[in-house]
């Protein structure tokens, strides 16, 4: 249902208030390079988001595929007034991967988001971001990283409301902003092994980029046929889509002022519109749920982690 704006209390910022920001996270999947480029062009031109992350997070083999389009994408995003954030790999093993990350860390034109502690270490002393793949579970770690230049931290997705609240209270004393992922398949695990290749009977070294066939990941069902997980190369995601639409108000009440949307093949401009309307208090969680179902073709959603329950659960506030 639509809400009458004047009824909203002081906690919810007014429409257009710069206090609550939206980040479009990095594309986690192996999209065709042109699709990848066009997605970011569309986000640049049409999406009501403040920051946009790009860069390969999941598999270093994919990075060269879309690399030629990066300069044009950055230019387009900047022209549209959006902050560009470069995301690092999450699991760095080979010397070649480490070298790529050293190069990334040497860039000082953009905010770099470290998804592995090695990259945060390379950025020590300079302003940088910490992605959801780095384990920031408590004040001790948050304070340590903040003191070394972490200005923005997207928290791990398994944290419940209580932990988010405690960390937000703590970070209010620091010059570090917390970001919470509120939409998209949950990134649950990363491995050295490529499950996409394995599922196709291939080896990772000769994977034929089979992960490119599944733009939102390949759904893994249980033996009963229940959708369970989704694989994306060496990454495992949830089959359900995280949606903290109904929790946005509670998060804002804690003081959280930045939310992350994780890109999928659905219309992410519309998804961003829904979350923008939530942050401004124009619509409520129920209305948002209806709209997300329309946009996504009724994907199953979950929010259990926020409620200190199994992450796969979809619970009411």
């Amino acid at each position, binding site marked *: 249902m639509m809400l009458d704006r004047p009824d909203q209390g002081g906690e919810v910022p007014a429409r257009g208030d710069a206090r609550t920001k939206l980040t479009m996270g990095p594309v986690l999947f192996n999209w065709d390079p042109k699709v990848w480029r066009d997605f970011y062009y569309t986000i640049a031109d049409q999406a009501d988001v403040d920051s946009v992350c790009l860069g390969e997070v999941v598999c270093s083999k994919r990075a060269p595929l879309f690399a030629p389009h990066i300069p044009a994408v950055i230019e387009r995003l900047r022209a549209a007034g959006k902050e560009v954030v470069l995301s690092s790999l*999450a*699991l*760095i*093993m080979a*010397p070649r*991967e*480490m070298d790529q*990350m*050293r190069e990334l860390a040497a860039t000082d034109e953009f905010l770099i988001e470290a998804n*592995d*502690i*090695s*990259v*945060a*270490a390379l950025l020590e002393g300079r302003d940088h971001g910490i992605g959801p*793949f780095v*384990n920031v*579970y*408590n*004040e*001790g*770690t948050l304070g*340590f990283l903040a003191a070394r230049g972490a200005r923005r931290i997207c928290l*791990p*997705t*398994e*944290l419940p409301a*209580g*932990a*988010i609240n*405690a*960390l937000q209270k*703590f970070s209010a004393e620091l010059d570090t902003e917390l970001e919470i992922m509120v939409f998209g398949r*949950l990134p*649950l*695990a*990363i*491995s*050295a*092994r490529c*499950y996409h290749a394995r*599922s*196709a009977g291939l080896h990772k*070294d000769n994977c034929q980029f089979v992960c490119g066939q599944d733009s939102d990941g*390949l*759904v*893994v*069902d*249980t*033996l009963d046929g*229940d959708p*369970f*997980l989704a*694989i994306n190369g060496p990454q*495992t995601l*949830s089959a359900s889509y995280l949606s903290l639409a109904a929790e946005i108000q509670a998060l804002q009440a804690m003081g959280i002022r930045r939310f992350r949307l994780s890109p999928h093949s659905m219309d992410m401009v519309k998804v961003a519109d829904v979350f923008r309307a939530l942050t401004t208090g124009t619509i409520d969680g129920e209305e948002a749920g209806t709209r997300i179902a329309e946009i996504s073709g009724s994907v199953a959603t979950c929010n259990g*982690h926020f409620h200190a*329950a*199994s992450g*796969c659960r979809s619970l009411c506030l």
Partner: protein
Amino acid sequence: MTGAAAMELVCPAGTPASLKAAVASGADAVYLGFRDDTNARNFPGLNFSRAELEENLDYAHGRGCKIFLAVNTFPAAGDPGPWHRAVDDAAALGVDAIIVADIGLADYATRKHPNLRRHLSVQASASNPESIRFYQRSFGVKRVVLPRVLTIPEIAALNREIEVETEVFVFGGLCVMAEGRCSLSSYVTGQSPNTNGVCSPASHVQYTSEGDRLISRLGDFTINAFEEGEPAGYPTLCKGRFCAGGKTSYLFEEPTSLNAIGLLSELREAGVTGLKIEGRQRGKAYIAKVVKSFRDAIDAMERGEVIAPADLSSLTEGGENTTGAYERAWR
């Protein structure tokens, strides 16, 4: 050996009985945890009270065996007390090292107990030289337990770039995901290795019979089904049978255990210091047999002899062995 120190055999203990079995079977060091969620094997009925640790420290030290205390979960926001107490007690009791994963806790230990030796847990997933140097520089860690994602050539390359000791898993349960970066269990049960110290907790397991089939479930999801006569496995999430792309398979990993007993000399060549056996939740019979087998193999290697590796297949999940990520083909 060319003057290098002998490799150290690091063995698990979930109970004092297991600890004694490990010491008697030739462990150089035993790792263990307190009976709470400060360590990554927080299973019901397992682990050590403070008094048990104190008593067994004397026992182990009296027999030349070191004790490492794992405090390797991630402290809860707003409630770091149990983790800080675990570190304080480890220092007070005089353990030989603590094994930590969390940056904040490593920082606490470094400031509070600078002389307490610190090892970096596998749960920190430090898989490259920059990460390892970060932990060395920031917290003076002396040893890093490497995540089970690296090949032997990668481990060798890594050891050439770092100054701290490395320890690797050579036997036991195999995480197929990068450790400390997996919330599959949390997604299904609300209990995670990182925060609760458990994966696929027994409290959420259900076995049901459907005719001759035995179904294992974890939380709301079926993890596996076994036909009549087929050995049943514990429903560890990543070792279940699932359907993807029209095929039913052990998509992530077969029910199998790591066994690198045939790779010890290669690991030594790669510069590894510690050889770690997984299985704090396993019984004393397992501990005794596995530790003895590795002790014999290491001793033979040090003497320049080659011995036939003991058959440990009866102790592995599904009776199957793998060398895991140590060989590139695993990926």
